[in-house]
């Protein structure tokens, strides 16, 4: 039986939802208050948003046979920049009157961080894990340097709306994610870009000989990864009305990689599925929420994640499938 790759995370998600239908009272309850929906399902989507955003960029990066470990640190930097600008703590740049400018500048900084990664990987030829490790280590240091190690709190209703507001009855962060997702998905799937990205990941050298500028593709996907990390960082700081350089986005790079893997994109590059990563991210958040509502120690989610990573990469491994198939078809060896 050969299922479509996205079927596996969908089945997983369905199982979790089914479990909650029986064992978690009120899981499906939705309530409309002040033009906004409330309920466990909405909560899952809202909490999944930062990882959902990161996983868009991470999917493209992984499709080129790369990985971006710096997204958590970039989130912290973007949050710090936004918080400093909106509180007018930057002496030479007074833009607190325009939240749009504040957000734009934060996103430009985050995109620049992504381009830095992309140049190291695409132009200089450093392995992705190592290249992005540099910014993962130094980036959080930069964010702490910007904020002076303190939480920078602010009081700006317009910026806060990005984190806590709502639109169309849904939480604002989730709506922002939908917009970003549709834009990027259309951009890579309705143009040849997606194909170029897959070609780069399958065989960068062959792609180059076929006329695909694989080094530029790499710079581009890391830039997108930086940009979406910036959006996630701004939302995260708007949500708590503060920039927390120490904890913003901590370990989120791992959650994003996990969402992509669970979503069925091969971690060795090539074919990718943006929608799969979305299902993967929602699945992981649904699992986390379920574990928490059952009153199990929150630390159990870490153990669950570990087991899921191992299971997913084993299922993706040709060697594992081969040893499994042999045992099934050849009773003499079993």
């Amino acid at each position, binding site marked *: 039986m050969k299922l479509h790759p996205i079927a596996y995370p969908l089945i997983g998600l369905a199982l979790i939802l089914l479990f909650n239908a029986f064992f978690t009272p009120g899981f499906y309850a939705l309530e409309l208050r002040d033009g906004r929906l409330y309920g466990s399902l909405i909560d899952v989507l809202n909490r999944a948003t930062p990882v959902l955003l990161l996983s868009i960029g991470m999917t493209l990066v992984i499709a080129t046979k790369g990985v971006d470990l710096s997204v958590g640190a970039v989130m912290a930097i973007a949050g710090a920049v936004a918080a400093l600008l909106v509180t007018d703590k930057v002496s030479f740049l007074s833009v607190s009157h325009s939240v749009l400018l504040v957000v734009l500048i934060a996103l430009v900084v985050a995109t620049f961080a992504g381009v830095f990664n992309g140049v190291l990987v695409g132009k200089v030829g450093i392995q992705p894990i190592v290249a992005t490790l540099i910014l993962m280590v*130094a980036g959080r240091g930069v964010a702490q340097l910007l904020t002076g190690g303190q939480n920078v709190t602010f009081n700006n209703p317009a910026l806060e709306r990005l984190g806590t507001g709502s639109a169309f009855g849904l939480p604002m962060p989730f709506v922002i994610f939908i917009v970003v997702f549709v834009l990027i998905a259309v951009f890579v799937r309705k143009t040849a870009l997606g194909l170029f990205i897959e070609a780069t990941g399958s065989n960068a050298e062959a792609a180059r000989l076929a006329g695909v500028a694989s080094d530029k593709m790499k710079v581009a996907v890391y830039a997108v990864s930086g940009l979406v990390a910036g959006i996630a960082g701004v939302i995260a700081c708007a949500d708590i009305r503060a920039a927390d350089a120490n904890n913003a986005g901590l370990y989120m790079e791992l959650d994003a990689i996990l969402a992509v893997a669970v979503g069925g994109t091969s971690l060795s590059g090539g074919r990718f599925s943006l929608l799969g990563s979305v299902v993967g991210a929602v699945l992981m958040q649904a699992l986390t929420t379920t574990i928490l509502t059952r009153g199990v120690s929150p630390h159990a989610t870490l153990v669950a994640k570990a087991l899921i990573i191992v299971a997913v990469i084993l299922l993706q491994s040709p060697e594992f499938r081969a040893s499994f198939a042999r045992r099934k078809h050849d009773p003499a060896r079993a």
Partner: protein
Amino acid sequence: MTLRAPRLHLPVLATLAVLVVLYVAASIRFENFATLRVFMNFLGDNAFLGIVAIGMTYVIITGGIDLSVGAVIGCTTICTAVLIQGQQYHPVAAFAVVIAAGTLLGATQGWLIQRFNLQPFLVTLAGLFLCRGLGLWISSESVQAKHATFQTLEKIRIPVSDGVWLPFTEIVFITVLLVGAYVLRHTRFGRTVYAIGGDEQSAHLMGLPVARTKIGVYALSGFCASLGGVVLVMYTSAGNAINGTGLELDAIAAVVIGGTLLTGGYGSVFGTFFGLLIFAVMQSAITFEGTLSSWWAKIVTGVLLLAFILMQRMLQRSR
């Protein structure tokens, strides 16, 4: 060979040069920096990191990476403390149990990586989640570990000069350093580690025990990480599941700054030792300065990492 040797040694020489420059600059800037006591503190404060970095050196020379070490340290310290304090284990028995468990975990990771050709960073990422989760599950608060044996162990120390001693934890570190350097250079296992990093397929065709050695290096890294955890328990007399958060990055940084190629095949344990000392000098200098904040250490580490990786890249291209 004589032509290639200086170029091959360039990364380690660069590491030494950076170390000397940093040390001399700090000694001129601060009074009392260039004292034996401060130097001994470099070793003492970083003994556990150093032990972990030596295991990491082996893994990176095979072309792999181990992200689980920081979490293994955290899990080890909390398990040790709980075994001694809660379960009334004798410390030596507790040490043996946690080191055996750490080694087994490392070997399991190595087996998964080798047998199913999985990416090391993903498998060890799972190890990171597993250990952090288990450790926090056991106890999310710090647990004290007090036992008479700790005082006995503290008495084991080597006099270096007037009033300056080499304490037990540092003796452990230096032993691991010397044994690690010897095994890597002069045993069949060590030579196979280099061969795998140079070209795994060739190593296999040469009839070297590739599978066993690959599993071995991850087991060694697990051993070093759990030993590092034990040393940390002895140093702080407590266990905490969040110990060693982000330590994997510091260990990788020490290895890379120490001149080991991240693509595998080239590196040395002593290089890692120098990398660790750069780390230690930097941190002490920041403490001595007083006004500088701890995040500068992260930024300087990042800049050093970048510089050394770019240098490695240029050396590889010109070869």
